[in-house]
């Protein structure tokens, strides 16, 4: 495994910006997640690193080597796509063996057998090795396609929303599994998603992309607790952070125009009067939708708290975040 360094990387498609001036270091053995909505440049970054696209400007260093002019095969990366692409006429075993039989790797047969047994064990598909790929469930197929990357020992794994086509339960299981696999292999992994839960739960480092730019890069905890902009603050946290005019509660630092209050960071019993509009009982938590001087606010309370629409409560921020007119954090 290896460290990957991006230096001032840019790529446009005609007049559309793919990514613009992205610099980041993916440390050896890190699980880095790129988070952003559709069109933020996540997949473009992956494709540039893998060599499927050529950068307009900037450099890509893998394991201390500038790979700008290398072909995808020479770069020694393994990619997993959102849509699993298996050979339907081959068994699971042959699908897993395929990458190892490539002319570049030319792996000996006993080594292939050992590798497949190991990866199948890790992914819990050992009992399906002799099944045809088409006889698998969606979750199993995606595990096989992840397995096809894992049988190799590339310098970095690149994964493009590999869990997004799976149902909720399976996604939850595979999240834990994937993180365990990455940690046990000590693999360097760059993972792209628009799902904040995946980013927070799996990553050692999260990079938040906005319109092709890397706007913040740090541990999930840093990004959640210390976002540098309104944009980043809104990307992490469920329900979403409440954004209101800064002066609503008083005490706003100078230069700030907006206050951000996470739903779980709202105190009750003091501060401003708000009216309960709606009560959502989600079981493990109850969400209150409030109206405060015409502003909608969501807060989270104890699941068995007894509120009804129309009730009046007082609220005040706890650990609020302030932002200026351009959406930059004000400290």
């Amino acid at each position, binding site marked *: 495994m290896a460290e990957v360094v991006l230096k001032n990387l840019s790529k446009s498609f005609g007049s559309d910006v793919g990514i613009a001036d992205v610099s980041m270091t993916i440390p050896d053995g890190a699980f880095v997640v790129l988070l952003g909505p559709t069109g933020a440049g996540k997949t473009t970054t992956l494709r540039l690193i893998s060599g499927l696209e050529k950068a307009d400007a900037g450099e890509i260093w893998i394991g201390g080597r500038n790979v700008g002019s290398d072909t995808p095969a020479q770069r020694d990366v393994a990619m997993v796509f959102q849509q699993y692409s298996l050979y339907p006429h081959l068994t699971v075993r042959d699908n897993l063996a395929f990458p190892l039989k490539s002319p570049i790797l030319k792996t000996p047969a006993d080594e292939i057998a050992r590798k497949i047994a190991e990866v199948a064990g890790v992914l819990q598909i050992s009992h399906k090795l002799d099944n045809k790929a088409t006889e698998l469930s969606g979750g199993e197929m995606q595990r096989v396609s992840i397995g096809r990357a894992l049988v190799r020992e590339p310098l970095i794994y690149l994964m493009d929303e590999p869990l997004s086509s799976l149902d*909720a339960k399976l996604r*939850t299981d595979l999240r834990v599994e994937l*993180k*365990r696999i990455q940690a046990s292999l000590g693999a360097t992994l760059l993972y792209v998603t628009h799902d904040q*839960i995946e980013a927070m739960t799996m990553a050692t480092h999260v990079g938040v992309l906005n319109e092709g730019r890397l706007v913040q890069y740090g541990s999930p905890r840093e990004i959640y607790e210390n976002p540098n902009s309104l944009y980043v603050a809104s990307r992490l946290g469920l329900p979403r952070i409440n954004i209101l005019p800064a002066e609503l509660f008083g005490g706003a630092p100078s230069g700030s125009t907006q206050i951000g209050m*996470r739903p779980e960071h709202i105190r009750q019993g003091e501060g401003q009067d708000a009216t309960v509009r709606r009560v*959502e009982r989600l*079981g*493990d938590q109850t969400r209150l939708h409030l109206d405060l001087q015409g502003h909608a606010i969501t807060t989270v309370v104890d699941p068995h708290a007894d509120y009804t629409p129309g009730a009046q409560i007082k609220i005040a921020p706890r650990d609020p975040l302030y932002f200026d007119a351009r959406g930059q954090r004000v400290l």
Partner: protein
Amino acid sequence: MAQIVIRNIRKDFGSFNAVRESSFTIEDGEFFMLLGPSGCGKTTTLRMIAGLELPTSGEIYLDGEEISQLPPSKRDIAFVFQMFALYPHMNVRRNLSYPLVSQGMARRDVRAKVEEVANILGIQNILNRPVGGLSGGDRQRVALGRAIVRDPKAFMMDEPLGALDAEFREHMSEELRALHDRMGATTVYVTHDQLEAMQMGDKIVVMNNAVVEQFGTPQQIYDKPATMFVADFIGSPSMNFLHFDGVVADGATNVDLNGQTMAVPRNLQGASGKLVFGVRPEHVTLSDAGGYRGEVLAAEYLGTTQIITLATPNGEMKARIDSAQVAKVGETVGLNLNAKTVTLFDESTGQALRSELNDEVLADG
């Protein structure tokens, strides 16, 4: 508006049984969710209420009138499909007017009604626009408007938000619920998304394999699941199941879990054999003490909270704890399970054992 009573309804497609004798009541003005995995019979149930399928047996009452064999047009129910179908060659106003014009309503009344509905939905400013150029949200509002203009007794919605991306879906679900709160129309809504059901519904019916598993408010279903299926399907992460072999006496207030005495709500029916101890992740706390122990396998950071996966003598379990608390992978920790919230199940039937906690809810359901 209307109350809908479903009594012993059944639907067979040839030899395939899609819905088995199901009964529940949708009260006037309720936002009612039919929830379950694909193939559970929820859409078939909805289509029977709307009249798009005729039940093999059983009755459906709309405001006291038995309607199960009436054609859809005689039921006064509006149906909103997953894929919103609009007439592409007409503008928004004509799309909204069409259902009324085809009913033979006077032109002036149509105009007034369309204005009223456009007002409710906040689409007055796009009435004269062609539907082709509308955003996804506006298309959806127009489609809803077409269902609303007729003033039906009830609305049927089949995963209306299913095709949307997560962010937009969240926004539309809030809008839909707010619209319901303004109009108070009885709404039956099909979804496979448990969070959506909990968020939007006044009541939920959970279906699985053609059978109603449970019927109640979101909080009842979450806190007092009637079956292992419901306990597993509702909640994320879902309820932990600790499997054990044992005996629970009628009146017992604890069980033996791998040699440890665990308090439970007073049992009211007694059972023995293969049993399951069910506890939700947020009711598991980690401590240094505690005789019941587990090894930390993984920690998932979620901001304010984190999810800890543990290996216990009775199987894997998850705990939702404060993210400030430290839990190191590989460490063995004591586990406290909040006794008041525990549900015991009979593993062979999957049914919850009756206890002080759930007696009232199970008696209803």
